[in-house]
């Protein structure tokens, strides 16, 4: 009877051991399975065949091609407002100091697009002591930034050794003085030019571009013109959708303006701050 009890006790320990073995085996199997999944995620999830290759799988709906691999995570850049996925909302929301961009187009990749639509500003043959005007348009949009500035760089038109006198301050037309300048707004008296236009016009609108630098009064005074190379003619205080700008150039040649064909090249330089 004592032997039976002892044997039964030993049998009980064998059962316990088998259970432990079974638990360990199952545990290892689970671990191996999980680790396979984990390592698959850590590695490059490339899929390929003879003719095609998927470099990296994507998850989520925000188009982040680098959204999940060893070196990248699924969170958009902090500049985009932090973690967000999906595309249930599309667009921009903000207040005076903050804004968020969301939706399919949200990306950490900075963007700056500037298109000058006008290649030539030709005044033709000018009439002396007469306000001559011409316009040029350009568009700017940028993304993931603290805004942008657009500078005008170059010199006033030159013929031979004579350079048309640029207006270094915002100045109204004066028939008796040689003048060259520009502004970025609608000139109500002259009836030429336009204020910046947000595209789309909304509501809502995603464009925040303004004429001038947003702080000084330069290039934004109607019927006053100015030109200093390097100055800011347009800007946006934050990420902005497309803003369409119109530059109005004004030229006044007088009797002492040397005759000839005046030429000048101006560049518009957009700089985003990220």
């Amino acid at each position, binding site marked *: 009877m004592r032997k039976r009890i002892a044997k039964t006790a030993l049998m009980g*320990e064998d059962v316990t051991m088998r259970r432990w073995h079974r638990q360990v085996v199952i545990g290892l199997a689970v671990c191996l399975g999980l680790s396979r999944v984990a390592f698959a995620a850590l590695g490059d999830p490339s899929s390929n065949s003879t003719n095609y290759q998927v470099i990296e799988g994507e998850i989520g709906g925000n188009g982040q091609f680098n959204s999940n691999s060893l070196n990248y995570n699924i969170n958009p850049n902090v500049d985009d407002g932090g973690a967000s996925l999906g595309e249930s909302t599309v667009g921009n929301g903000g207040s005076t100091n903050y804004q968020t961009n969301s939706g399919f187009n949200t990306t950490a990749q*900075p963007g700056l697009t500037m298109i000058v639509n006008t290649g030539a500003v030709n005044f033709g043959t000018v009439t002396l002591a007469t306000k*001559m005007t011409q316009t040029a348009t350009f568009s700017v949009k940028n993304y993931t930034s603290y805004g942008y500035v657009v500078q005008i760089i170059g010199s006033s038109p030159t*013929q031979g050794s004579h350079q048309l006198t640029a207006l270094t301050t915002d100045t109204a037309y004066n028939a008796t003085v040689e003048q060259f300048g520009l502004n970025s707004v609608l000139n109500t008296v002259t009836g030429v030019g336009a204020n910046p236009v947000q595209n789309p016009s909304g509501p809502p609108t995603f464009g925040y571009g303004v004429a001038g630098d947003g702080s000084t009064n330069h290039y934004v005074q109607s019927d006053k013109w100015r030109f200093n190379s390097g100055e800011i003619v347009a800007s946006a205080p934050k990420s902005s959708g497309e803003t369409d700008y119109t530059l109005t150039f004004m030229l006044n040649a007088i009797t002492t*303006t*040397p005759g000839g064909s005046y030429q000048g*090249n101006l560049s518009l330089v957009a700089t985003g701050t990220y």
Partner: protein
Amino acid sequence: MSRGEILRSHYIGLLKRAINWVGIFTLATVFVATPAGATAGILGTRSATLSDSAGNASGVTATFLVTPGTSATILGVKFSLCTSPLLSVTCASPGGATLASATAGSQLKNGGAITNAYGSPSYTSTTDVCFSNGTGNAFNGTSDTFTFPVQAIHLPTAVNTQFYFRMQTFTNTNCSTGPTDFGGFAESTTQTLAVSANVQESLVFCTGTNTPADCTGMTGSTVKIGNNPGTDNVLLLGTATGGISTMYITTNAASGYSITYQAAEFSKDGGTTNIAKANNQTIAACASGSTNGDCFGINIKANTTPAVGTNVTGASGFVAPTVQTGYGTADSFKFVANAAQQVASTTQPTVQTQYTVTYAAVAGTTTKPGAYTNTFTWIATGTF
């Protein structure tokens, strides 16, 4: 201790060791798999300002202004010019763009000259340039600003095209190991605005005997001198008399203008019987030396003997001319017949300038009687 407890302890030990190895393996995998050049941090507020954005522009300077992001001593700074700002994307050159000749400009730290400037590039290529300094500069990642102009950049050929700069900082001069911070910059080439205007060459010149506001009111073509001009016009013996004509000139000729006259002798018979000609002298001096005691001459000054004429004047800002010898001194006269004679000139454009020409003469005791005349042709020539 029961057998079950022994086994439990054994397997727990195994599990702990397995967990340790998995941890070590994971860490090793992460470090080995991190690509060279991968950057730990992100540059803070940053911008890159181009000196020119015209498509295909060369010799462009891009001035990078950044807050470093991470506090570190930076020995190498790498710039790339690519079609994508993402570090994970192989840098491809936008068509026509290159950093191959890029050089480092004067760098600033917090607005002042940097201590150890990053100089000659460690390497350059179409897409990349690495500037280094063996000592480097220590930056505070959040409070310092770093300005780095990169010169001699050639921009992409196409206009209105977006492209990107990348900037990476390293704690090594090779711009490969020790990556610290990274940032992308979006840029765009643009179409150059060609501004043009044609200004026609202009020369407005008129002559007459009155003094209107401008040439539109100029009239008169006869100048009479002598006693009671306009009535008897008799030259006085021994006393000079005179009359005037006026000329207005306005021109935008870049190199100015000249005024000349062409005239025959002051004669009663077309050139045979003539009044003597002054030569940079008073009428009296001229007459005393002439055969018949007579003399004729002109100038463009305000005279007292005779009391005729005014100095050159004009609208506000007119350019004072250079007057030829003999015509620019009060009471001194000159006259040359049958040959073009320049009286005045300028070397630059001018607003309306008014000339008053004084014609003065005196008769001598043996001056033959008759009606003496000549015709002056005044010519203005602009040099454009």
